[in-house]
């Protein structure tokens, strides 16, 4: 499954980044990499984007972009 399918409060592990474009690099630069534990904090008031916690820090990304992050539920 992919990150955009997780609901606030859900947790999972990053399996793979599936973007061939700069999105993949950007996610890597921001600290999203395979093996990392990721937790969904909340969705924005209009549902999109979403805020996630990774390893003590927080990033927000659009659901469209979260589709590129393959997740394994624990």
């Amino acid at each position: 499954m992919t990150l955009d399918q997780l609901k606030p409060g859900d947790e999972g592990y990053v399996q793979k980044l599936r973007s061939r474009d700069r999105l993949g690099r950007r996610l890597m630069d921001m600290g999203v990499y395979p093996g990392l534990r990721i937790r969904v904090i909340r969705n924005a008031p209009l549902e999109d984007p979403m805020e996630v916690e990774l390893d003590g820090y927080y990033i927000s990304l659009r659901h469209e972009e979260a589709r590129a992050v393959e997740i394994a539920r624990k």
Partner: protein
Amino acid sequence: MKIGLAGQPNSGKSTLFNAFTGARQHVANYPGVTVEKKIGWYASNGENVEVVDLPGTYSLTSYSPEEQVARDFILREDPSVVINVMDASNLKRCLFLTFELMEMQAPVVLALNMIDLAEKRGISIDTQKLSGLLGISVVATDMKTGRGKEELLDTISALADSSGASGGIGLDYGEMEPLLRDIESRVLAETPHLPASYPLRWLAVKLMEGDSEVIRLVASAHPSPEDFTADIEQLRVDFESRFDEMPEIHIANRRYQEADRIARSCMSPGQARRLSWSDRIDKVVCHRLMGPVVLVAVIWLLYYLSIVQGYNVTNYTWPILAQIRSWMEVLLPGAGFIEIPIMRAFGLWFVDSINALLNYIPIFFILFALIALLEDSGYMPRMAFIMDRLFSRYGLHGQSTLPMVLGGIYVGGCAVPGVMACKAIPDERSRLATILVIPLLNCLAKVPLYVLLINIYFASHKVWAMFFISTISLLLVLPISKILTLTVLKKRPTSPFVMEMPPYHVPTVRGVLTRAVERVWLFVRKITTIVAAVAVVVFILMRFPGISEERMAHYQEEKHKAVSSFIQDIEDTDYADAIDPDNIMAFIRYWSGYKNARLGAGGGDAAKAVNEKFREKDPELYEIVTRQGKDGMIAYRAARSLERSRKQLLMDMKNEQIHNSFLGWAGKSLEPVTRYAGFNWRVNVALLSALAAKESSVATLGALYESDERGESLEKRMASKETGFTPLHGLSLMLFMVLYPPCLAAAIAVKIQAGGTRWMLFSIGYSMVLALGVAVAVFSGGSALGLSGFQAMWLFYSLALTLTVVMGLVRNRPDFGVV
């Protein structure tokens, strides 16, 4: 000696920069890009050290201008030391950048910044061990308390003295190593000059990463560039098919694994969560219902403090500017009865143009300080988080919120700071879209014309008309931005939204004020010089060729008539000898001097003092201006009528001057087109003069609809002069003003932020066409359908609303190649 500060955003880099350099700073732009270049200086052992604060970046690819700027500095400007500033609480993620810096063989010193905060969270880091593992010097610092500053300075000097012995471990890229070694030897053999200026290993890693800049760099030095580029691409494809992982992701992954290993071995984790109060704030600020409420409150406060209160402050600062003007009045050659020396006319015009702009400084200062406050506190990303969904539908970005608010999303903003604030938008396409639409928002300077027109043509529906004009600009901006995104901007690169949500910080007074002063100063320097230059041009356009000699002779005659009738009137009084046609200006100056002095003095003792002073100056004239006795009264009346004639003459001359100026000609020659929008030449001239500054529209109309002695309001004068005008004319003119091209200062801001004259010209051109198109459609369409102004207003509103909804539904999601 030159050193660079590199680090990720939110690592406290600016605080460190300020702590090092104090007030010795300078902000400029890197050539060709919109990235700010901050340089500062400090003295170390008698040597002057130049510090360059590089833009905050997560890594050093060639994807964004910020990263390129930082990368070019490190590679090409050969800094003696690069301080890698990092947030000690985020060691693992920050090491990612450190590895890149070491790969570039930069002489790196690691500053583990904000160490106090990390320790408060229970994180402890063994700096000795970290230094050993990385092979570079590590200093724990906290710039809020000054901790570690001396040690860091010593480390920098020591490293600079040892010149270039940067050390630092090389990273092992596992399965990729054989490939990297192959590339290294190929580069060494085929482009033998390149490794002298660029680290070989770094080139190899970047080539494997598919970094377009580096591929181009090596290919351009290669005897057969196409082959080389194709070979590299083949290597990348082979790697991916063999290891089922894209090379760039493999590289990043290896860096994180290494960072993870190092972080684990020299750091005790603490509670790896951010401060709980930051979470608690976010529970409210990002809440489904409370979030938008807080956002609206923050925006309201921003408006209130800067626009409303800032305007009040200008009541105190305006007298200073007015004083400068009155000094100029004294300095410049004096005015004759109807002959205004050109130096005087120009000097006053020039001062007025500059003053109009300087008058905004208090507003800008408050605005910039509040923005700095929002930036430093960490609220900005939350704002973007809440608004992104709405704005991204229209090709804008979450981070377009602040620029739009500054530009006047409702009523009363200013496009200049709005466009300037666009710098923060990380997505180029959205940034350009935002820059292009901000001038269409309702800036403060457009409001006087709205108010004038509403008072004349929509007097019975004032509230509704005001609501219409306040909200229509947003309903036009959103669809226009979407259309621009789908057409002109279609090919511009777009970036992912992925954005850090840093913990909240308490901003420092110093940091906020420094930034506010810095930005105001940049604004003053950049904008005023250009406004000054254009003031000259507009002056010429409005003045030449001007009044013909015959007409001038006619005015001279009128002058003589007025003067001789005055002399006749006072012939039989005691003052007949006191004033003659040659010294009549002396009397006029004396009189206006007296009136001004009395106005300034108010009442009581001050007024008495003024009286005394003018009596001493000239007892005879004093009797006239204070209407003493029968003769005094007669002379006073005669003087009043003389003054009226003079004013009328000056006004007629000014009117004729505009009529016979280049601008007047332009206004008239545009009439065949603009009449479909309902504009006659007078309106055209007013609109043309507003090209430089929107405020001018009402001022020029004021000059065109000359006032007579009854002192009627401009509303009445315009209504009586333009008897053919209907509310439909008024509506068309208002909508034209909404879409009118950016004023001069805003156009310059567009040029600076969009990074080119081309965009500035486009911004002016498209809004001009759009404004005229809408005005013609409303006027001609409304006339053809037989609509009243008020009906046309709401028909237009519903069309705009429909267009906004429809454009919001058109899908335009960027394709990031998700597989």
